[in-house]
């Protein structure tokens, strides 16, 4: 009896409270108010993200200023010693330039070839659907497995050298020569990822209104002029996506080098990714690896962000 009566009063009270000035608890409500959905919806995502991504990265960044090897219990703060060591480290310098060479080559190859392929498979050639499939397929294949396949093709008695001999040329040491090894790695990665640029450009091309191109043709533009002055400017958003993806991919390169060269010959194809892996997990110099990773991320940021800015501005100018 009493309980029911109490509940009734409570209901009446709170109803009255809501009609009049907001009750005290609504201050909390206002602070916590999300404007819609309950916070419980975002909680799991934030928890996983902090535990798996953010916290380990911050811890790793902290270790860059210590002498920790990844195993010992004792961790000594040693300031900028790791960074000072890096300045004199010839291998780090060579890894940075190799990474940059690979990244920029990939951008150029993927944008140019991707665009050409997209224009071809978007024209009225009869085989366009088949061509799309063929050029895109390598994108979904496992990079490490594809790289082992190419290792055979590049090997001394492999397919490429057999073909060279057939046309009467000298066989080459594709993976044994420093310059050729770098080129081989770029070939494999381009083969695997040019299809991705193709479909991104293709989606961009399909969004170009046909009236614009017809108008250009009526005004007397030849096909090349039409592509250069009408189609390309309209592809600016697709261009941004392609360049940024190619850059990030080029800067974070690992599987292909693991399978094809292991960073060799010497350190000719050692990139920052493979180097960080080697220093941290094989040499056990984790704190030094962390310092290299920090400098690496700085380089990525310094390159990717301005590139994005420039490309975005072009989008707006034409948009």
């Amino acid at each position, binding site marked *: 009896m009493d309980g029911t009566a109490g509940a009734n009063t409570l209901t009446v009270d709170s109803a009255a409270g809501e009609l009049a000035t907001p009750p005290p608890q609504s201050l909390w409500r206002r602070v916590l108010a999300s404007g819609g959905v309950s916070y419980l919806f975002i909680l799991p995502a934030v928890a996983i993200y902090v535990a798996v*991504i953010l916290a380990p*990265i911050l811890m790793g960044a902290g270790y860059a200023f210590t002498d920790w090897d990844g195993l010992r219990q004792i961790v000594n703060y040693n300031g900028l010693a790791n960074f000072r060591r890096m300045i004199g480290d010839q291998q780090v310098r060579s890894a940075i330039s190799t990474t940059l060479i690979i990244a920029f080559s990939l951008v150029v190859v993927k944008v140019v070839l991707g665009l050409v392929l997209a224009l071809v498979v978007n024209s009225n050639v009869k085989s366009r659907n088949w061509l799309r499939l063929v050029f895109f397929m390598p994108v979904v294949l496992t990079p*490490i497995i594809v790289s082992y396949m190419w290792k055979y093709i590049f090997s001394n008695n492999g397919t490429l050298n057999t073909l060279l001999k057939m046309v009467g040329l000298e066989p080459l040491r594709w993976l044994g020569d420093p310059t050729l090894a770098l080129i081989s790695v770029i070939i494999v990665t381009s083969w695997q990822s040019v299809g*991705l640029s193709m479909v991104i450009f293709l989606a961009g091309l399909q969004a170009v209104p046909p009236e614009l191109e017809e108008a250009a043709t009526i005004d007397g533009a030849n096909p090349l002029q039409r592509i250069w002055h009408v189609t390309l400017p309209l592809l600016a958003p697709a261009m941004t996506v392609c360049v940024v993806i190619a850059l990030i991919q080029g800067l974070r390169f690992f599987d292909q080098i693991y399978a094809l060269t292991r960073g060799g010959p010497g350190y000719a194809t050692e990139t920052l990714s493979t180097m960080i892996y080697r220093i941290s997990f094989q040499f056990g110099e984790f704190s030094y690896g962390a310092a290299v990773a920090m400098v690496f991320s700085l380089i990525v940021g310094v390159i990717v962000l301005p590139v994005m800015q420039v490309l975005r501005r072009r989008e707006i100018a034409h948009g």
Partner: protein
Amino acid sequence: MAKGRYTAGTFAVEVAATVAAICFIFPVYLLVTIALKERSTWSRNPMSPPFNPYFGNFKQAWHEAYLGDALISSIVVVTLSLVILVTVGAFAAYFLARCKPRLGYTLYVFFLLAMVLPFQLGLLPLYQMMRDLGLLGTPFSLVIFYCGYQLPFTVFLYTGYIRALPRAYDEAAKIDGATDMQTFLHVIFPMIRPVTGTVIILNCVFVWNDFMTPLLYLQGSRWATVPVAVAAFVDQEITDWGIVFAALVIGIAPVMALFAVLQRHMMEGFAGGLKA
């Protein structure tokens, strides 16, 4: 592009493109044909078609590389990761798409941090965490890693899509007395099915193909995923390319099969999904 008549120029482009495509696909042909030949055959005639297909390589690779176990391990890792990513990602995106703009922007930048920060920095602390929790050498360590690593991207894909859905749907459900959870499960989730498809395809390909993380977490354990098992096998068996290629063919067969079934969806998913 304006589709004009089929001219002589178009024909020339067609021929050139077909030749390029044949050269482009040639390595895959080579992979299959060498896998189907005995050592004596492929060393003399690597490029000819396999007139008398030999399946011994596949049998040997399957047993020696423990590919049966590896396939099960990969399937377990991919399935668990996808279930968690879709659930957690879609929930979070529903919140982000419907919360106050300023809070939404703050959280957006918060999740974006992951794409700028170098994940290599976190690899060893995370490795230690897994070791302390006793998860190293089990598929759960990988599932946890992928759920964290692929989450921001999944959330962005979903958020963009849910933002475009009119709020009138949620409001109608709320007026009818539905809770947030009911609204999400019965109204929102069915409407975002297309983007769920994209999320599944992109994450599935990424998780299946990843090599560096399982190399760290699972090397030498009986839970090695397909890429790790194949790489470990190839590195010791590098002398007979027939057997190596058989292992490689088995290793890419599942993704190839997926691609054969979902070709159009995959191309659209990759073209549209990576813009997020």
